[in-house]
């Protein structure tokens, strides 16, 4: 059985007493102790400010996945709007009832890691029309 481990370390000196977080988890299929068995790893270059799908639900066969997204830019002013929601009509991500929700801005050098319920697509909108590289991995 395949094994995928994720470890996070956060150390913060914001407060007078430092905060240290160290946790590890094994990525399993939904609600089980069986390890995930599928992995996708993609690097893309986006060259417009268009709002586009990054990871579609159709690309994953399960209803539970883990997603890692990285903005490898070294320019702190370049970022991606990362959202969840399906495109509707002619390219809009707002169907008037459940618009795509922006999770956050992924600045140059930043990463994110989260569980995804594979109910709606993960979409992205670059902050600039200059070439911007985005990397992601999906485990399911």
């Amino acid at each position: 059985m395949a094994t995928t481990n994720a470890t996070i370390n956060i150390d913060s000196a914001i407060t007078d007493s430092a905060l240290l977080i160290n946790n590890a988890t094994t990525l399993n299929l939904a609600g089980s102790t069986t390890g995930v068995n599928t992995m996708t790893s993609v690097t893309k270059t986006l060259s417009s400010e268009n709002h586009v799908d990054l990871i579609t639900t159709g690309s994953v066969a399960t209803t539970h996945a883990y997603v890692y997204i990285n903005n490898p830019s070294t320019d702190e002013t370049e970022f991606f709007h990362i959202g969840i929601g399906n495109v509707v009509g002619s390219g809009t991500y707002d169907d008037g009832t459940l618009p795509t929700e922006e999770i956050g801005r992924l600045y140059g050098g930043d990463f994110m890691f989260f569980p995804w319920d594979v109910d709606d697509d993960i979409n992205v909108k670059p902050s600039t029309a200059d070439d911007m590289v985005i990397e992601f991995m999906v485990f399911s």
Partner: protein
Amino acid sequence: MATNATLTLSSDVSGDPVDVTKSAVLTKDKSLNDLDQSTGLSRVHLRNATNKTLLLANAEGNDLASKVYIINKSEDAGLYVTITINAQTVGKLYGGDFMFFPWSQTDTASSIEVAATSWTSSTGDIPIEYVQFHEDTDFLTNA
């Protein structure tokens, strides 16, 4: 007062093992200046399958940088909580799993909500720990 985050992923799902290590210094919006505020690490015990607000969105938070870490401290791999932002489900956090992500707070409806979806009176509480790092200059008085 820097805050550093490092994620390591190691997997043998593919024939050739994959090891990814990524580190980031948490900085303010479009800046190299460190994030300088934190909620501190908090712990709550969930015992309700309906959505509860974990972090309340602040209108001032839009256009500012913020990072959130959440972990499900349950030791039962089958016990999960559902993470939602503005009615949009992000994912299910099973026992032992964590997430780390930037949070935009695009408007006051963008609060992070959590529901102990798999909780029943016989499962016991689901403990959640979380922390937010942010740059909002007046977070508490405007919350």
